[in-house]
């Protein structure tokens, strides 16, 4: 018996509005913290930017990865339980409310009159209801009383229920999507073929071009993509650009970023020791020789100003490459060169040439998108029902010679301040 009571108490705690709001409040506070502390950075980053005490706090409480932390997920799970219990347990009551009749004689009284002089009371009541904008009339007997009633917009009762259900679907769909998400990146210059993770597919970048608008501003980035199966046979192809992803069997390819690439040739004396493609920000490393060259940055339209190196435009009118040479782990040289210009350092020579824009595509497969969208639509429909479809009714009670009217008789919108919608009632 006592166990039953504790279980009931637990259920009633989990389904309560107060519990749901407390969870939302905590999630809100954590979201504020997460938005102000950069997420997903290394401990060294926080040490550079915060005091020792704050770093200890951030790392101890997991504020560096708040949105993937166990407690953040647990709070959402608890919210799901709250929404589920709230939705399931309230549904019967809502259905009863929508189908039944409940009115307050004290608060909803419209008028009372005698039916002595009225020849056909039923017709009189019908006429009255119609004048208030109510059509279908139902009757029921309550002891000595005959009750006539008509209802409008009962669907409004389902508003808050739909919102809660929609929110629950969105959270579950998002969680499932995060759990089963596939994500990879594909990048390269035109002609490159890259494997896409373990999907068995390869992406062949057939072309990449930038469309310039007025004043050399970038209008759009276009990648022509071909997907190949394990045998190298094309299975799909298409053009993708920002806001127009390419989709194939649940995988979506997004035009995400771009940068510069250059071919690097390395020599020791007259012997070639390396030849590869180098992307901006990456490093050519020859471990055997202990030498490395980093492609720091490319200035497509180079200009040297008093405030440093810069570019006049994004067009490769006067390209210069900023590089660094490392030997045995120490930086030994740093300079800018034109493409093709030989870089000499002791017995080594390097040449960076054939500069090209590369395209960077994000690939992902996130199940549950359609479910999340359905949940979002349910929330919006529910909000409309809750706020703008206020259930209304009129009731006529005939008892002896007395006829009393109750309910919402005023023409819609006229009794602005007489009633308030139930809103989101949880």
């Amino acid at each position: 018996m006592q166990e039953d009571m504790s279980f009931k108490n637990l259920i009633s705690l989990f389904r309560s509005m107060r519990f749901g709001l407390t969870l939302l409040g905590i999630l809100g506070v954590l979201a504020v913290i997460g938005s102000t502390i950069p997420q997903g950075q290394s401990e060294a980053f926080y040490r550079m930017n915060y005091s020792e005490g704050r770093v200890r706090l951030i790392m101890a409480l997991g504020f560096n990865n708040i949105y993937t932390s166990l407690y953040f997920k647990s709070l959402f799970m608890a919210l799901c339980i709250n929404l589920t219990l709230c939705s399931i347990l309230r549904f019967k009551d809502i259905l009863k409310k929508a189908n039944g009749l409940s009115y307050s004689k004290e608060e909803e009284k419209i008028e009372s009159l005698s039916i002595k002089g009225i020849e056909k009371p039923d017709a009189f009541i019908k006429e009255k209801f119609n004048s208030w904008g109510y059509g279908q009339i139902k009757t029921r007997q309550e002891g000595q009383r005959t009750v006539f009633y008509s209802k409008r917009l009962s669907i409004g009762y389902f508003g808050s229920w739909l919102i809660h259900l929609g929110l629950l679907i969105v959270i579950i769909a998002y969680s499932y999507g995060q759990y089963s998400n596939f994500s990879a990146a594909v990048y390269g210059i035109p002609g490159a073929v890259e494997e896409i993770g373990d999907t068995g597919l390869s992406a062949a970048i057939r072309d990449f071009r930038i469309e310039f608008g007025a004043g050399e501003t970038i209008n759009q980035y276009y990648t022509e993509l071909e997907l190949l199966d394990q045998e190298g046979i094309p299975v799909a192809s298409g053009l993708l650009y920002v806001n127009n992803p390419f989709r194939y069997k649940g995988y979506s390819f997004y035009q995400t970023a771009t940068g510069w690439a250059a071919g690097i040739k390395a020599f020791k004396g007259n012997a070639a020791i390396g030849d590869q493609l180098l992307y901006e920000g990456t490093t050519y490393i020859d471990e055997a020789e202990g030498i490395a060259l980093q492609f720091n940055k490319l200035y497509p339209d180079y200009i040297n100003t008093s405030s440093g190196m810069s570019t006049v435009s994004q067009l490769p009118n006067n390209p210069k490459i900023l590089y660094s040479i490392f030997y045995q782990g120490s930086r030994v040289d740093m300079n800018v060169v034109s493409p093709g210009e030989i870089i000499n350092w002791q017995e080594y020579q390097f040449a960076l040439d054939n500069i090209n824009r590369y395209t960077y595509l994000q690939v992902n497969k996130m199940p549950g998108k359609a479910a999340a969208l359905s949940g979002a639509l349910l929330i919006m429909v529910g909000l409309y029902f809750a706020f703008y479809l206020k259930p209304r009714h009129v009731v006529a009670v005939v008892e002896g010679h007395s006829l009393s009217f109750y309910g919402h008789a005023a023409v819609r919108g006229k009794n602005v301040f007489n009633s308030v919608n139930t809103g989101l009632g949880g």
Partner: protein
Amino acid sequence: MMLENQSFNFALALYIFSLVGYLCFFTLRKEKYAVYGSMLVKFGFLFHTLSLATRAVEASRLPLSNQYEFANSFAWGIAFSFIAFEWRYKLKLLGSFVLPLLLLVAFYAAMQSKEIMPLMPALQSKWIVVHVSTAVFSYGAFAIACGVSIMYIIRDRLREDRFINKHLPNLRVLDIISYRAIALGFIMLTVVIVSGAIWAERAWGRYWQWDPKETWSFITWIIYAIYLHVRLTKGWKDKKAAWFAVLGFVSIIFTYIGVNTLLVGYHSYAIFLGFRWV
């Protein structure tokens, strides 16, 4: 450009004079000043609309794409909501509380670069119209709720003041007006978040990634969701709910101005990890 600038400056000047009118009404307690204030704000709104329309023609798109354009449209949304609510509920004192919010946003717009730039690739989407225009009306409605809630708090503090009693509706009515503005704003905010998520999925590959703008929209949504629920709880329907409505608008302002200027994310369009993100 000249017509746009002149119209905007005229609108700004008329809004300032309108606020002066409303403040005179509030302090000198003469009704004619409220009439002037109401008239001036309507003229200001006309010039404001002309300014936005001119920019739309010049840019060949709706002016919703950069800090200046959105701040300008946001101020227009507040003006539109104010005129609608003042007309609907005949609240003569509303201007004294809403026009400062309108001017705050309008001055912020005036401080931004007005240069018309071509749309960056990430903004070239049909979703921008739904996403940003609903934000304009949502924020406008929340500004009204904030103004009405401040009126509520003042009405509650000055219960015996005859002028306040005459020109401010009773607390219950103020609570209902604030509630209705928030209900409208909340629906719009939900559309903003959902349309933003759909757009983000098409542009960035994920419909929700806890970007600061998304996060702060979520925080604002939570604040107003709590407001809408606690109104149903005994003891919360009155002054506490009014404070919540004010807090919600503070969150709106931070979501709009604070996030764009103080926090780094996709909405600040920063250069990220050495790549030029598109």
